């Protein structure tokens, strides 16, 4: 953070106390989260409704048992773990903003890096949500808490995942919270309080996704996953989903929070990252597909099932080829010269890349690990309505977390909200308000 970008303190010499101001800060954030334009209310109401549908489906699943899903002893993980895996990648991929911002001192990226860090927080919330709904006994969640429960660390890869995911969440909460609060106090952040954590979070981001890959790669009895290439593939595809989502998000922010300056530089940098990672990912994906399909044999039937179908069963075939088509489309779009000039082309590439990886790394990765089963029975899986509802609910809740976090952080970063002027009375009249993430046209309907 350069000092010049900070607005001058409201009253020099009257330095607000950082401890005493904290309740005030929380109160301001609370008000920010719960006030907004009509469109903000409408959007949040819609997301709440989806989240409640998911919550209701989950409540039924808890009462009746996981029999509400279409998982079986043969395919014992399904849509939840697929989405979990994908979203860990999204959380890790957000670090693609942090690396240029802090490691390579990219000024323009530095201005918007908070978006990536907040995205990481929201994505981890989604990950934890998917783990929670996949558990048969969420009431026993406390068993993983070291000291009280019996976390099987370091032997179980899942215990590593518990540690690194929660660690990553805490790291990002600390970094974001600290930076936002310092902005709020109109103080220059003390590097000692956040820079070590930023660098730690870069390594940590790589670790959360590697550990998630090791969850699968470490299982000798599942040849489809038992590949050393899995962790590199995870990291590379994370660096597709992260930048792709952030590019889209930055465009949304530009539209709904124009006061928050989003330069072209960061978007172009992320697009350049995409141009590389999409190709590397396709190469790795093809390399795995070749090894599996060409060598044949009993250990490679999962790949045959995934791409071609097996014993007359081929539920995943249209699914994976859609993923391949989306990945190829994104690769072509992102390399068109127009992707540098035409926003629509770039955004279409991002949507295709996001969808392609969601398929390839979600259902396209988790389900074939179970088909055929370890005794080579071919039992198919397609998610039940309950699973779709719960998944939609979790994503809606995650989106709410992201929007609320942005709605709280961006006005502070643009200087609209600070310790000097945080009372509600000063909020709505303050000219083109950036407190709202919504365009001026839709503002004012309620406020």
């Amino acid at each position, binding site marked *: 953070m350069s000092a010049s970008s900070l607005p001058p303190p409201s009253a020099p010499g009257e330095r607000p106390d950082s401890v005493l101001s904290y309740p005030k800060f929380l109160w301001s954030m609370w008000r920010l989260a719960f006030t907004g334009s009509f469109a903000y209310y409408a959007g949040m109401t819609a997301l709440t409704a989806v989240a409640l549908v998911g919550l209701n489906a989950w409540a039924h699943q808890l009462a009746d048992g996981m029999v509400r899903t*279409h998982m*079986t*002893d*043969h395919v014992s993980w399904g849509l939840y773990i697929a989405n979990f895996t994908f979203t860990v990648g999204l959380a890790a991929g957000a670090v693609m903003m942090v690396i240029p911002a802090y490691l390579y001192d990219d000024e323009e990226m530095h201005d918007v890096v908070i978006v990536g860090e907040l995205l990481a927080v929201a994505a981890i919330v989604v990950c934890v949500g998917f783990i929670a709904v996949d558990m048969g006994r969420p009431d026993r969640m406390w068993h993983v808490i070291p000291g009280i429960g019996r976390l099987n660390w*370091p*032997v179980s890869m899942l215990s590593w995942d518990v540690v690194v995911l929660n660690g990553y969440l805490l790291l990002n909460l600390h970094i974001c919270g600290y930076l936002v609060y310092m902005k709020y106090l109109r103080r220059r952040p003390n590097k000692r309080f956040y820079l070590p954590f930023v660098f730690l979070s870069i390594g940590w981001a790589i670790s959360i996704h590697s550990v998630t890959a090791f969850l699968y790669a470490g299982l000798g009895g599942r040849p489809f996953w038992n590949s050393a290439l899995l962790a590199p593939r995870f990291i590379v595809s994370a660096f597709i989903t992260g930048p792709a989502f952030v590019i889209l998000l930055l465009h949304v922010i530009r539209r709904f929070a124009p006061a928050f300056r989003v330069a072209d530089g960061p978007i172009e940098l992320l697009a350049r990252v995409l141009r590389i990672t999409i190709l590397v990912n396709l190469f790795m994906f093809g390399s795995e597909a070749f090894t599996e399909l060409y060598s044949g044999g009993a250990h490679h039937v999962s790949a045959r099932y995934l791409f071609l179908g*097996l*014993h*007359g069963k081929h539920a995943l075939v249209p699914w994976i080829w859609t993923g391949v088509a989306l990945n190829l489309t994104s690769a072509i779009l992102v390399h068109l010269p127009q992707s540098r000039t035409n926003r629509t082309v770039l955004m279409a590439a991002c949507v295709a890349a996001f969808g392609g990886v969601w398929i390839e790394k979600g259902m396209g990765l988790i389900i074939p690990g179970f088909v055929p089963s370890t005794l080579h*029975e*071919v*039992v*198919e*899986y397609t998610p039940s309505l309950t699973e779709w509802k719960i998944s939609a609910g979790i994503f809606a809740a995650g989106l709410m977390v992201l929007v609320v976090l942005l709605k709280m952080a961006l006005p502070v970063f643009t200087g609209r909200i600070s310790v000097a002027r945080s009372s509600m009375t000063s909020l709505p009249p303050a000219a083109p308000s950036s407190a709202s993430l919504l365009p001026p046209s839709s503002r004012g309907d309620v406020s």
Partner: protein
Amino acid sequence: MRLTACAAFLVAGCAKPFQHGEDVDAGSPSFSTEIHASPKLTSIESAETDGLGRPVRVACVTCHGVRDAGAGFPENAAVLKDFHAGLSVAHGALSCKACHVDRHGGPPMLRLATGEELATSDAIRLCAQCHGPKYQDYLHGSHGGMNGYWDLGRGPRLRNHCVDCHDPHVPKYQPSRPVLPPKDRFVTPAPVGSHHG
């Protein structure tokens, strides 16, 4: 310390060949193994059935206690009469006299190849004279079902007799319908001929 232990487990643990703890001296067992006295040794199935649909068995002595088996054994099973009518024999090229003592009066007896006579309950010795390897397996618990205790220090064991599973006249184990088919959700029987898909 825990970390080192786990690292050691991860590295060394996987390379260890199968091994178990120190052998123990179980001492002499306090309980014994008994062999099931199958009703098949002393009775024969009749055409009648009981309330549960099982064939009613009639003890050999019911008839042979009061009347002679008659003169000699027939050359083949087809000419047998009364209770023995319809008895099929599919046991290699053996004739009746290979196993049965051909004698008027007294309880039905079996005979070994040496001519030594045996009570029907001792039929295992008779079987063993041809089926040596199977008999070895049987003696070591790896052929023929059993019930009771694996630990003879804590309780007795009951072994099946050969004839519990093998009809001496048609010893081949008879095919039967399997029980308890898998009923998991989404498990469908593989379509015939789709195996090598």
